[in-house]
């Protein structure tokens, strides 16, 4: 708790600090490559025959996903707090790569925790993290995925709390993490709002994003919460809700308290956390950031899911039709657009958060298709 209080104080003072904000803005521009483009996907729009589809190109941010927005923000903050070392959990490896990058950028030591199963699925990112000077520690306990990596990172943090900052990768965990991560990711929506006004002179009718822990979706949605845009969060439907092999917390979970916050959780009747499944490691997580249930219960955001199969065909569709290979996580959002768009009119506008690029998934997808690369 004292560490969380220390972090809360440091974060809110940095938020008001013009020097910190100035440094962050320069890094966003010159290092991350912001603003990321808002791209009109004309061929996808044409082929689906409905609304105009825009892609917010977070896949073009440095390191290939939106995760860098948060990692650079927290790395800068940790440096300011006088910490010597960064630790992080990672599922798909994108947050691990982003944190290792942030650590290299500000000159801090870095250790990344990753489940055994995810290390196999995302071998490329494991090597990237090592290349960036991070130590990658395998987590072979529990379900050997993201939630276990978070457990291990929290154990490390309680042990080395004096010297170490834990760069939690999503809008989850104890306060101030959900609000801090949202603040660093909200740049996505702020830019998109300005970009769509420049392009279309009006705000979008729909916003669509995939939801694992929920940082890319909150990042896009936050700036639009007071607009009329309808928002859809897409969870991982895995092999289908009936099979129990999924990570759709709203469709299959209930209220629980886990890893420092109260939210929806996939759990059994005794309160033990259930194993999850998704083709995408980044969505393969038993709970969801606590702001999402709040926004769902208030009716502001609608949540649905896409199955592995739907995500895989969206992965191929976007590659073929737009020349953009999305991360398997982001492919879940594209899969929802494929269902949604044909029912909309040509005047309507949809913005999809293309939260990451798919290079990391190419080998995994080839394997699913029975190909050896």
């Amino acid at each position, binding site marked *: *708790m*004292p*560490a969380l209080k220390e972090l809360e104080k440091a974060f809110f003072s940095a938020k008001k600090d013009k020097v910190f904000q100035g440094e962050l803005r320069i890094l966003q521009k010159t290092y991350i490559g912001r603003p990321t483009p808002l791209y009109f996907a004309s061929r996808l729009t044409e082929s689906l025959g409905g609304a105009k589809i825009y892609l917010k190109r977070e896949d073009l941010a440095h390191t290939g996903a939106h995760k860098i927005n948060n990692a650079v923000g927290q790395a800068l903050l940790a440096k300011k707090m006088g910490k010597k070392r960064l630790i992080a959990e990672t599922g798909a490896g994108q947050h691990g790569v982003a944190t290792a990058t942030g650590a290299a950028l500000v000159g801090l030591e870095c250790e990344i925790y990753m489940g055994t199963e995810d290390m196999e699925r995302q071998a490329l990112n494991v090597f990237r993290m090592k290349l960036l000077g991070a130590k990658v520690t395998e987590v072979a*306990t*529990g379900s050997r995925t993201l*939630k*276990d990596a978070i*457990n291990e990172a*929290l*154990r490390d943090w*309680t*042990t*080395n*709390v*004096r010297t170490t900052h834990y760069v939690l990768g999503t809008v989850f965990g104890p306060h101030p993490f959900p609000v801090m991560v949202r603040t660093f990711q909200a740049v996505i929506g702020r830019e998109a709002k300005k970009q769509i006004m420049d392009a279309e002179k009006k705000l979008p009718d729909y916003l669509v994003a995939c939801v694992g822990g929920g940082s890319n979706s909150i990042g896009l949605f936050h700036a639009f919460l007071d607009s009329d845009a309808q928002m859809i969060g897409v969870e991982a439907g895995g092999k289908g809700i009936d099979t129990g092999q999924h990570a759709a917390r709203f469709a299959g979970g209930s209220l*629980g*308290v*886990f*890893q*420092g916050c109260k939210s929806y*959780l996939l*759990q059994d*009747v*005794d*309160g*033990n*956390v259930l194993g999850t499944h998704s083709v995408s490691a980044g969505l393969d997580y038993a709970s969801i950031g606590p702001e999402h249930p709040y926004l769902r219960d208030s009716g502001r955001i609608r949540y649905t899911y896409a199955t592995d199969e739907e995500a895989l065909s969206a992965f191929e569709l976007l590659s073929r039709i737009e020349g953009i290979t999305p991360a398997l996580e982001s492919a879940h959002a594209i899969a929802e657009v494929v269902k949604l768009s044909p029912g909309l009119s040509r005047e309507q506008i949809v913005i999809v958060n293309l939260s990451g690029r798919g290079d990391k998934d190419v080998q995994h997808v080839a394997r699913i298709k029975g190909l050896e690369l």
Partner: protein
Amino acid sequence: MKLTIGETFKRLRKEGKKAFIPYVMAGDPDLEKTGEFVRLFEACGADIVEMGVPFSDPLADGPAIQRAAERALQNGVTLRKVIAYLKRFSHEIKIPVVLMTYYNPVFKYGLNLFVSDARDAGVDGIIIPDLPPDEADKFISHARKGHLNTIFLLAPTSNDDRIKKVLKASTGFIYYVSITGITGSDLLLDGSMEVLISKIRMYTDKPIAVGFGVSTPEEASAVARISDGVIVGSAIVKRLQNSPDALKQYLTRLREAIR
């Protein structure tokens, strides 16, 4: 007649002794065996027993207790089953039972029902390492009504505000975590613990028991000198597979060291 935590520390204080509090993971390898271990603890002079409830994500625990929890879960042991077992078992021992469980199983069980079932089963105190006192108002008020002790944790990083908050929320005893870290880590005996414990004593006369990382009789002895009780967890869990004689000998040596 079963003793309470309060009575136990009162007796120990009068006799100038310190509490020996061994830990066992319920259901590792099965609940009947857990009962046998607890009887052995009592026979070897334990004053209180701390019983872990298996959970899928034991955040505060090191490898030894994580593995014990995994084994117990594989055997289908749940909070409900632990309480049902204690209801049959706890009258067989005189020493008080403290349950150590993570919060989600309790939340799912229902706070009110959990408190009354635990009390019925002869449980005298609850430790929930992932429930800070800041978030525990509801739980504490249910526990007070059910006459169940709520034991919260202090750590080397706890500042004065934290100490006051934890002391106010805690009954029975204060659980002082000897190190920053998880159960079963290496203990550091550099004199800093003594400083922190005397600081806590400025604010309270509630008993202070020290846990996390106590493994050898020498460490137990050093910790006992500056506290009111010593909790030994991982080191015992690791030895449960040893021969009964070796285990008994280890427990006896710990008992003799804690004074």
